[in-house]
């Protein structure tokens, strides 16, 4: 019983004991308790079995692949690991990834805030459509997300010839990589903020306005402090996805080594060249980013929960 406790059973026990405070009732409760308790959770073997299945599933599909990344990365020792990371192509991929992620986070932060504000603070027709459009990049295949920019800026695309005539390079260069990343990560900040701001309503803003605050002051001093943790959470997820985006970026980048390769693309190249250790070394950085993101996310979640 001590190894796997049924949480519901415990709660029910407490609730029952509190309600039945009179002495006559208590004996009544005691007589009923064993049957109620038994019916309200599974038997111990079933509980153990379910927990083992759950843990086994998570281990097989998540833990082992994650551990494999780090073990493979270090399989040839520290020197191999570091030389893989200090390779000029790797460094340029890391640099490009950081720049792209920083830019798209900044852009999405700004527009995510504005979109969430518009959607949650006013009533207007077509709001559901607007939310659906914001969500759309979530459910579109990353490859399709990349393709749309090829169709716009590629040589056979709508602006292809004009761009070539004017010697402007978008596709297979930094601008397209950034655009594709922004497209893919567009929903993260707004999606995180919309439910939060919806729940908070508009009365605090109204109170601030009635006390004489301007719109900007109200936003900075009343709205922003209330959503700062949710905002941070959105930034975190947006950043993780921006750094790790593969499909969309792969379509628009052109895979030019040392120029338009981001970390995930660099990993692909190394893997396809059978440089497994180097591929996993770079991959381990991204895996580490994922772990750090999740740890911070858990900390933020606990903070948000305590605030409630």
């Amino acid at each position, binding site marked *: 019983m001590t190894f796997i406790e049924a949480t519901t059973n415990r709660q029910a026990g407490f609730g029952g004991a509190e309600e039945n405070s009179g002495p006559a009732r208590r004996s009544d409760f005691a007589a009923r308790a064993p049957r109620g308790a038994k019916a309200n959770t599974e038997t111990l073997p079933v509980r153990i079995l379910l927990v083992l299945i759950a843990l086994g599933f998570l281990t097989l599909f998540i833990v082992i692949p994650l551990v494999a990344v780090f073990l493979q990365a270090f399989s040839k020792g520290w020197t191999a690991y570091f030389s893989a990371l200090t390779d000029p192509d790797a460094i340029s991929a890391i640099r490009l990834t950081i720049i792209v992620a920083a830019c798209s986070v900044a852009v999405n932060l700004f527009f995510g805030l504005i979109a969430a504000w518009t959607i949650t603070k006013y009533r207007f027709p077509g709001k559901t459509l607007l939310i659906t459009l914001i969500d759309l990049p979530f459910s579109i295949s990353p490859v399709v997300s990349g393709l749309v920019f090829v169709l716009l800026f590629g040589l056979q695309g709508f602006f292809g010839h004009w761009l070539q005539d004017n010697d402007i390079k978008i596709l297979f260069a930094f601008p397209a990589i950034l655009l594709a990343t922004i497209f893919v990560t567009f929903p993260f900040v707004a999606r995180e903020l919309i439910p939060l701001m919806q729940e908070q309503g508009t*009365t605090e803003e*109204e*109170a*601030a306005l*009635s*006390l*004489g*605050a*301007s719109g900007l002051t109200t936003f900075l001093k009343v709205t922003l402090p209330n959503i700062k943790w949710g905002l941070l959470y959105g930034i975190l997820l947006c950043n993780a996805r921006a750094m790790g985006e593969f499909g969309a970026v792969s379509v628009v980048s052109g895979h030019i080594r040392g120029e338009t390769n981001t970390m995930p693309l660099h990993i692909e190249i190394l893997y396809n060249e059978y440089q497994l250790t180097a591929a996993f070394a770079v991959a381990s950085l991204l895996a580490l980013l994922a772990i750090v993101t999740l740890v911070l996310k858990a900390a933020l979640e606990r903070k948000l929960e305590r605030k409630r």
Partner: protein
Amino acid sequence: MKIDVRNLSKRFGNFVALKNVDLDIASGELLALLGPSGSGKTTLLRIIAGLDFADGGEVYFAGENAANLNVRKRHVGFVFQHYALFRHMTVFENVAFGLRVRPRRERKPEHEIVKRVKRLLEFVHIEGLAERYPDQLSGGQRQRVALARALAIEPNVLLLDEPFGALDAKVRKSLRRWLRDLHGELNVTSVLVTHDQEEALEVADRIVVMGNGKIEQVGTPEEIYNEPANSFVFDFIGESVKLPVRIENGGIWIGSRRLATNDELPGTGPARLFVRPHDLTFGEVSEAPLQGAVRAVRRVGALSFADVRLDYGGDDLLVEASLPPETLVRPGDLVGLTPRRYRIYEDGAAESLTSAAL
């Protein structure tokens, strides 16, 4: 400041929330907006504050059309139904907010703001709670903070939306009295929204009764209680007993007994008689116009009530009558009841046909 509301209308989609509301609020008075849930009280208050916009009609602040004054410029102290305190600010910062966000030219130096906030906190008796956050306060304390915050900007008018709605009966009562005293001291024009008639009757100088987006009656508490303008107000204010009656030959008939004659009564037809439970006197079965059997006797505090089942031309009707202290009745007793003061309303019409005191 004097506030006039002229012909105000407001719709939400197809739903009419306010219909041609006219209201004069005198400078310095404490006015209660009383009405059942959904009658449009909050909507009216928000339009006065400039937090909502009417579809038609105007609001005048001291005789000046407020259409072009936005909520920032109106200087209203608004106390929200659920306080709307700033969660991430301490009590002190909450109260100081309105002073700190003023444009630099009008802003007082910080030490004066501190002094003023301290005075306000003393004024509402929460000086010890300055460093607490709203979620560390009880409902009554939050209410005081909300009031202090609204008062900090020296408002032209104080608008309170069910300020005591979420509090328990005892706290309500003491805050009610405290608000009355506070108003006496400050003399700021105040509008208090409530659906608690007792609260309105006790606190307000004047009461506005609202129903379905319309003003049903405006008057002093005594007028509202003693001379309800129509059946809605009669029914809403205080307890009431409703009896179906008939008007015939200038007489009011209850079943086969005549209650009274009145030559002014027009025509013939069904009508309703409204009477307060304490205006039903117990009397002899043979003489009283109403008679029935006592079903139960209840004591509520110092008062006693009897549930009497009236034998009403075949239909049974259960009414509640207050028992005078000396009357002794037991369940099962046959008793007679005579309406002492009552009003007669024609079926379907709101206006009273007659009122009478026997």
